[in-house]
């Protein structure tokens, strides 16, 4: 009974949001969606316990041991592992290169709202419309980039430019540009406007304001979020190999399709170590950056 108990906690804390119908409507819709989904997804829990399913799972688990640690196999993996890291790095670079300018355009306080634009926009209506339009366009592009999963982007880029790490970089670059751009614009919209106004009062141009008023404030958050996205990019680029976009995923798919589960075990273990290592590295870097900010 999650809906009831949830609204319960909320309405008790602030009585302003008390709405008597919401829990009922929510519960009914939730149940309807659940039943509909249950039928649509062809859920058959018993399948898991049937003899064949059980045998298959057992075959899989038994096949994993002992993990394949032969030198011949491990030697194959050096290059894909490095490639996975390289794809994630280059993809993140590209995402920043695309996402940052779009993020600036998608920041309402820079393009058409607030004190920075008052004088410029006040006189001319066309210019105001132009500013607003560039803002909306940037938002739309960012939303398109991030809504299509990177996997689908990779799929299409492999078709367009051929196999290899290059389409992987493009896929991560495009879809992460969408996420980075959106978050950048949120960070930029929430900076303290005081320094910006002071700079404007001295007659500074807009690029100067961005460089000296906005960036020093926003940089720690921007860098820290970018690092976090890089962690995600490592995970993603390991998967992109499934569609032929290079990296360790390609080997994972081959082993999976060949039913070499002992190799799958090794690969997943490597993936785990890699992701954990990158997480730790990026967490330390983020800690250093945010620590610096806090002094």
């Amino acid at each position, binding site marked *: 009974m999650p809906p009831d108990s949830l609204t319960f906690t909320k309405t008790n804390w602030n009585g302003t949001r008390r709405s008597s119908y919401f829990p009922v409507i929510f519960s009914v819709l939730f149940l309807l969606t659940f039943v509909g989904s249950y039928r649509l997804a062809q859920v058959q829990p018993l399948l898991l316990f049937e003899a064949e399913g059980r045998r298959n799972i057992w075959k899989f688990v038994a096949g994993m041991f002992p993990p394949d640690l032969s030198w011949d196999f491990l030697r194959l993996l050096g290059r894909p592992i490095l490639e996975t890291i390289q794809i994630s790095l280059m993809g993140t670079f590209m995402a920043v290169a695309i996402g940052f300018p779009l993020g600036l355009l998608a920041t309402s306080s820079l393009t058409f709202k607030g004190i920075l634009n008052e004088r410029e926009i006040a006189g001319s209506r066309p210019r105001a419309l132009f500013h607003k339009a560039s803002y909306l366009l940037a938002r739309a592009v960012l939303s398109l980039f991030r809504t299509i999963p990177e996997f689908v982007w990779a799929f299409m880029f492999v078709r367009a430019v051929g196999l290899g790490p290059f389409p992987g970089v493009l896929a991560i670059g495009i879809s992460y540009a969408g996420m980075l751009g959106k978050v950048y614009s949120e960070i930029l919209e929430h900076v303290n406007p005081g320094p910006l106004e002071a700079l404007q009062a001295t007659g500074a141009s807009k690029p100067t304001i961005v460089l000296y008023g906005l960036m020093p*404030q926003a940089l720690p958050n921007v860098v820290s979020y970018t690092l976090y996205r890089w962690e995600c990019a490592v995970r993603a680029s390991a998967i992109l190999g499934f569609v032929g976009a290079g990296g360790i995923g390609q080997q994972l798919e081959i082993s999976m399709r060949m039913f070499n589960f002992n190799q799958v075990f090794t690969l997943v273990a490597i993936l785990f170590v890699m992701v954990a290592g990158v997480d730790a590295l990026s967490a330390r870097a983020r800690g250093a950056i945010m620590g610096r900010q806090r002094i």
Partner: protein
Amino acid sequence: MPNTGTQSARLAPPKGRDLLNASNIMILAGFFALMVWSYIGTEFSLRSLLGGESAVQIWAYAKNLFPPDLSRDFLLKTGHWTLETFAMSFLGTILAVLIALALVFFSSRNLMFAGLLFEMERSRPWLRVLRTGLYLFAKSTLNVLRTVPHLVWALILVFAVGLGPFPGMLALGIHTGGVLGRLFGEVVENVETQPIEALQATGASRLQILFYGILPQVLPEFVAYTLYRWEVNIREAVILGYVGAGGLGQQIQIAISLFLEHRLLTLIIAIYVIVTLVDYLSAYLRSRLV
């Protein structure tokens, strides 16, 4: 946020003193080296991307996509696949919550053997070992669920129960269960201690403390995390179709492999619509419930 703003603004380094010190130059050089290394390693080519061969290829492919296939028949089918994908993400998220809730209280140190609740306990080594064992078991289970990528889970489950959205939903639930278990665990380990202390002082049992002291605190955050993971799951549900788990992903794979570009565009539009819808729905629910 305005607070941190002023602080960091004060930190803006005076020119020439702080900017070019040794450590910053080292960081920049390392950064540049990484960039070159990955540029070469990934066979990236900026020239071919900006007006060269790749640009032409990408442009040609994009042009091929138009116009989308909007025949009534195909639209109906797309609608069905979209709903299937939605169902997968919805049920997968529910399954994930069930898995996470089943394990999270065992995987929280402050509920199992450490901290306030156990300060006054009589020393009974065997019970402590049992509790620590349970904790380690729950924690490592969650780790395994989380570490194996959802695509690999999907492959395993397709292998075990056959094609269709059902294995996709299971894969989403299992992987996300691990992720949510970890996120929930962090919430539970960071609860405010005063209510617990107060309850303990009244002589409440541990189960009562869990229900009246801890759950009311963590529930809103649990809901927020669940909704956030649902947004992730709808995207992953699209991907899972690639390995035979039904829904839009499977059709995308077919459309790409058979060069049915117009249909591909229709499917991509469907992805855009369903993902955006789920994002809005989740944001709405979050504002209502949390």
